[in-house]
């Protein structure tokens, strides 16, 4: 068995780059950008479970993301500790995800999209209008970040490493999930739900569990967002947040592990870095998406793999054709 396969080498190099990032990226600002990419990647990975593997496009995930952040912020404000607040936030998010699943699975396709959009808007409405609970448009401040095992997360590099740990846990979980029998069953419900039912699968329950799983990781991303900003406001639960997460998944490549991560990187870099140099950065972001959809409709990651393979095949064919020519034709 080969120990050093190209895939393992790539993973090792990527890990090395991520672990050493605070030392070479150049300043707190860019470390914070990296933290943002990782936390949004967790949300994109969570959404990818539905969009990519289940074939269910949700426009309400910002709601689940916000439920977690608000629950933790409210409990911290009430004097609870970070661990209790985080655990309670995840429990509440999973509970809300269950309701989300029961309501949204009344339909598939556009119907599912519209129901999730409606649920997202309801949650945004609660965050925005129930001011006595959520402090309305002013949002809620969180004064401290947790200090797991006595390690403070106040500094940018420390928070980056904490986010990286959670991000890697999400990536490993998603990789295991996608290769598992349940992951295959979920993909089957995406491609042939009728056939899956006839084969003995409970399609509704499989989708329900996938939504709850996705909701859990959306909640984890929501906690990272809360602690990163130490602030949460209704803007987090708005439709634009759900749409951005969906763009991350689609532009990077749904039903892949790397796609949502690259998608998150594109969106975050455009929003934070490019916007510093180009006033109309939205225009550039739009152009990038048009280019991706035009030339790589399957997304950036699978599209790049396809183009790379096609290019390599073309080069090989050219080299073979060149070698097959008579010697006098090959001479310049």
């Amino acid at each position, binding site marked *: 068995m080969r120990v050093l396969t190209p895939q393992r080498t790539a993973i090792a190099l990527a890990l090395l780059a991520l672990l050493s990032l605070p030392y070479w990226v150049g300043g707190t600002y860019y470390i914070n950008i990296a933290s943002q990419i990782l936390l949004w990647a967790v949300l994109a990975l969570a959404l990818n479970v539905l969009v990519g593997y289940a074939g269910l496009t949700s426009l309400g995930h910002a709601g689940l993301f916000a439920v977690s952040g608000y629950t933790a912020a409210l409990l911290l404000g009430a004097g609870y500790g970070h661990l209790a607040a985080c655990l309670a936030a995840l429990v509440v998010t999973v509970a809300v995800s269950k309701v989300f699943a029961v309501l949204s699975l009344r339909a598939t396709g556009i119907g599912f999209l519209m129901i999730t959009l409606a649920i997202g808007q309801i949650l945004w409405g609660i965050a925005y209008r129930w001011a006595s609970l959520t402090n309305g448009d002013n949002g809620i401040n969180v004064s401290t970040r947790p200090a797991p095992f006595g390690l403070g997360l106040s500094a940018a590099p420390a928070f980056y490493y904490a986010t990286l740990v959670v991000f890697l846990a999400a990536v490993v979980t998603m990789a*295991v*999930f996608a*290769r*598992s*029998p*349940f*992951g*295959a*069953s979920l*993909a*089957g419900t995406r*491609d*042939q739900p*009728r*056939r*899956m*039912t*006839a*084969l*003995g*699968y*409970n*399609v509704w329950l499989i989708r329900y569990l996938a939504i709850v799983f996705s909701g859990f990781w959306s909640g984890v991303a929501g906690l990272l967002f809360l602690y990163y900003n130490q602030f949460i406001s209704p803007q987090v639960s708005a439709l634009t947040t759900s749409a951005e997460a969906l763009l991350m998944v689609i532009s990077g490549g749904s039903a892949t592990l790397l796609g949502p991560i690259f998608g998150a990187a594109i969106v975050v870099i455009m929003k934070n870095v490019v916007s510093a140099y180009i006033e109309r950065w939205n225009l550039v972001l739009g152009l990038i998406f048009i280019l991706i959809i035009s030339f790589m409709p399957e997304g950036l990651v699978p599209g790049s793999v396809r183009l790379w393979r096609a290019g390599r095949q073309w080069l090989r064919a050219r080299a073979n054709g060149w070698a097959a020519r008579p010697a006098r034709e090959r001479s310049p």
Partner: protein
Amino acid sequence: MTALAVKALDKSFGGLRVTANVDLIVAPGERRLIIGPNGAGKTTLFNLITGEIAPDSGSIVLFGRDITRAACRRRAHLGLARTYQIITLFPHDTILRNVTLALLGLSPLRWNVLADLDGQTDLVDRARRALAKVGLEHIAERPLAQTSYGERRRVEIAMALAQEPKLLLLDEPFAGLSIDERRDVQKLLQAIPRAVTVVMIEHNMDVALELADRITLLHFGEVVVEGTRAEVVADPRTREVYLGG
């Protein structure tokens, strides 16, 4: 005990009665052929038996067990498998993964989120054996998108057989096949052990008649004629509504 007992089954879509008071008794191990002109309600009858649509009235009993109200997925666990007239497979997967999914559907392993599906050697070996039975083992790793129509028909049958059903419903298994492919599928169906009861819809009488013990002729959702091959072919109503002339 009968393998399948359908009694007074009725189904209407709006004002259109597509299954009208259908009675059907199929003995264990029997090969039953369902024939009828287009729109006779043959596939609807299959959909009612598998539970993909619910009947308005009547009952369906599978090996002594009333399954009229059982969910479609439950019927698969009770030994009912089917193929589709329009091939319904998993286009993004390999042939092997298609058959593995069929096996997984009846296994508690389908809920497992930690195991690696490709590492489930027992399941994968069984899928390979099912493919060997239909002569596709050599292309097991081939993506479904790179297979011929005839190969896909055989994958459909392999998926149904892999589930080791007690009752197998075949919806036009010869549809769209070339003469050679038809011969292959015919041999394949003849090799199905008698422990499996087979009910088949087919228009291609040349191949289907050889397989059938008894034949049921449907017309406008009703059973018009039922009997042995000789009885049904000789019946003037068969010529009138189906064979012509």
